[in-house]
Structure formats: C-alpha cells, structure tokens
C-alpha cells in the first residue's frame, strides 16, 4: 500500500516512543485494541499540577497508519489540558494523515487511546484522594 508522506514521516521518525511508570499517580495509561485484530496501542500521559499534559509516550503494535496515528496524537496532546486532549477526534487524525477509508479504524483507535489514558488517570486521582475535578 502506498502511503502519503505524513504517515511515512511519522512511521520512520516516530515521536515519543517509550514508557512511563504506570504506577505513578500523575501518569494515566490507556491500552486499546487487540492482538487478534492486528493492532494494540498503549498511550501514556503525565499530567502536572496545573492540569497540563506535560509528557506523552506510546507503544503500538500495528500497521504503519496505527503507528503514525499514535505518534501524531502524542505530539498533539503534549502541552494541552485534559479537556483539550479529549476534544481531539478521530476525524482530525485521519484528515491530518490523509488516511484511506480502510485505515480509518487506526485513527479511531488513537482517539480511544486518549480517552482510555484520561480515564485511567482520573481513576488514579480519585483513588489517590486528589480532587479529580481540579483538572
């Protein structure tokens, strides 16, 4: 499949590959997809005391579009508030990377990964006794 340059660029130089300590209270971890479907995304966010996502990391098992979608999302959410991050829609990702219809599910997965990471972070904050509404 011939990819456009943006996908290739992210695929060849993926941003923010890696892992953060998933036990850190400031870190939210989202894991979406399934190996049997051919794609699994792990997205981690670290939220600082001002409610800003100051770091994001990903690891992805999946095709080039899946890797590019996760890489792009880590770039976009860094420096944003949680609500701003949640406002990113799969359509924005698909448009930015010019994904063909058969690859749209990769962008859906990336959007899900943001939600899943935020959910994990909020859960931890509640458990940790911190007012989650603050962020």
């Amino acid at each position: 499949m011939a990819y456009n340059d943006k996908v290739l660029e992210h695929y060849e130089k993926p941003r923010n590959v890696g892992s953060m300590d998933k036990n850190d209270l400031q870190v939210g971890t989202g894991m979406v997809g399934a190996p049997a479907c051919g794609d699994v995304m792990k997205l981690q966010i670290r939220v600082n005391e001002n409610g800003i996502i100051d770091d994001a990391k990903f690891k992805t098992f999946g095709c080039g579009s899946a890797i590019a979608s996760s890489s792009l999302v880590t770039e976009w959410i860094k420096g944003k508030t949680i609500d701003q991050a949640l406002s990113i829609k799969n359509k924005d990702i698909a448009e930015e990377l010019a994904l063909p219809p058969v690859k749209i599910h990769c962008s859906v997965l990336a959007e899900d990964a943001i939600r899943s990471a935020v959910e994990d972070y909020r859960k931890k904050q509640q458990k940790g006794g911190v007012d989650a509404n603050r962020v």
Partner: protein
Amino acid sequence: MKLPIYMDYQATTPVDPRVLEVMVPWFTEKFGNPASRSHPFGWEAEQAVERARAEIATLIGADPREIVFTSGATESNNIAILGIARFHKSRGNHIITTVIEHKAVLDTCRHLESEGFEVTYLPVGTDGRLDPKRLADAINERTILVSVMAANNEIGVIQPLEEIGAICRKRQVHFHTDAAQGVGKMPLDVQALNLDLVSISGHKIYGPKGIGALYVRRRPRVRLQAVMFGGGHERGMRSGTLPTPLIVGLGAACAICSREMAAETARITALRQRMQEGIMKQLTHVAINGSTEYRLAGNLNISFAYVEGESLMMAIKDIAVSSGSACTSASLEPSYVLRALGVNEELAHTSIRFGLGRFTTEEEVDYAVRTVVDAVNRLREMSPLWEMVQEGIDLDSVRWAQH
C-alpha cells in the same frame, strides 16, 4: 547489489532473458495465426506452437496432445472444475477440495454450489498438508472431482499428490491439481501421480504473464464441457486465437525448467536455509508457517511475534515481500491459509512471505537477513505486546477490548 530486492517469487517472476529472446520474432516478422492453414505465415506459427506444446508436455510427463493453452492458471482452474462438473453432473454432483486452495479454485467451487453442486472443503493439518485418509473418507458415490493444489502459494507446502492420485484412481474420481506454484519447481509426473487435470501458469516459471496451460488426460480420456465458445480451437476445449509469442515463451520457460530444475532447486534450497538460519539465530519468538519438510525450495513464510506484518514490510521497504497480515489486503481478515493451519489470528498478522527464486543471490539474502533483524528489533522496542511479554505477562490472560 541493486535495491529494491525482489523476494516475492510466488507472486510472479521476471521473464527469463532466454525466454524473452525466443519470443521476440513471433511478435513482429512471424506474426501468423497458427490456425491459418493456407499460407506459410500460419504454418510456421503452428509449428512453433506445437514445439512449445511438446516442451510443456515433457516437463510433466504428458503427451503434447494433452496440453490445452489458456490465459493462465486461473482460467485453467475454471475450465477444469467447471468443465468436469458440468459434463459429469448426471453421474454425480459432489466435489472435494481443500480450505487452503487458491481463490481461483475456491471461488469456482463456490459458484458451482449455486448451480446445485455440493462441495466438501477438507481441512489441513498444522503442517499445511491434507491427510489422504480424510480424502478417502470424504469420497462418496456422487463424487466426480477432487481438486487439490500441488504446492501452496502462501506457505509453499507440497501436498501428498501421489497418495491422493492413487485414491482417486481407485475410486474412479477425476483428480485435478492447481500446479501454478508447483510446475517447474518440483518433480511432477502425470503418470506417476495419476493426475487427470493440471493447471499451469507461465508467469510463475519465468515465462510471460497472460499464458497458461491445462493438462487434460487422454487415456483414460477425460471429458469436460468448454467454458469459452468460438472457433473450436484446442480441440473445442478453449476457443480463441492462440497467442504464439506467449506460447513460445511458455514452452521455452518449461524447457529451461526441465533442464535446470534439479540444480536450481538445490541452489534455492541452500539460500532459503541460509536465510532461515540467519533470522532464527538472531531473533527469538519467530515461527515458520507450514511444513519445512514438504515445501517448495523458494518459500519462507515466517511469523515474527509482536510485530505487525505490514509495519514490518514498511520497515524493510528495500525488500519486496508480502504478508499474511490483514492490513495489506482490502479485507480486514488475516490470511485464510494461515488460519487453516491453526495459526492464531495474532500470529497470522505478523507473518511475512519471503519468496526466493532464480535470480536471488547470497548477497541479497544476507542483506535481507540484516535488514529484517534490525527492523524486528526496532519494532519490538515499539511494541506494547513485546514489552508485556518481557514483563512476564501472559498475553492470553489479558482481556482485550475487541473492536
């Protein structure tokens, strides 16, 4: 060494320069219609066609009169299966094939189901081979045709044709084999194997695209109904003007195979072993799909666990290969052949088919090994599954959110 490197010889092969050379005059100065009986243009073309017919027949131990020219193995499969089924439907309506056949066989059988035929799709073992006993048990008094491929296009696994042929002959059932991948790459003798019909492709054996042949046994005579109607060419089995240059090319390609198959198989087998060992020595969690014993020399199908096939192909873009991953096809299902072997979906997504052939060099193999090993290591570092496995998590115990 020139990049990109071609390692997709099961998809197609380049025309051997020796083949092209003998084809050329038949496009221009010797352009006659082999069916023209009234002048030398036709006569010389007919002679060339008959020479090619003999070259093809020799390769599979047949008589030249048993060779019918077609546009390729897909058409040969259609003529064989539709032709036998429709001609013999008063005798029975049952056909047996396997789940790992090429789509040209499977889709033709599916179509026949809509014409009232019953088709049994036999499973294969984890090594990709059909158990002849299963076949023997599946044959009933209504069975008119068994169609089992010689060698599989994805995994290169060779079927037990001799055993299958013996069963079919004993039970008086027609035996067809789709030998698009097998002809010219493994010994194939229609007498020894009791084959009634054999599909042959030109472009898989360094001949041109757009030409193929169907072997149709004369003794005992195999009768079939034509699919294409017209001038009654090829003894009525396949009407249409014969493409002399393509036929000459197919003949020349078969002649080279007859001469060089033994040496070529030995050379390519050594290359495949070199590749396999190079990869397996440097990477863990890799598995070869399909039997390594009964296998075409030039096929290496490997699953690289925790690395998705399409992303791996992107990482080794200097090497032209194909993948069993869903992401490379229009559908989102991973390879039905690998699934039939019991390869789980996750591993099917991680498979790559390396196809080696006549023009593959040791240098290319070594380059491919280095590139693949580097890419797999890099992508595993990026894979959440690999990370979990390193942490000792059993992936089967994880409840994944299916989507």
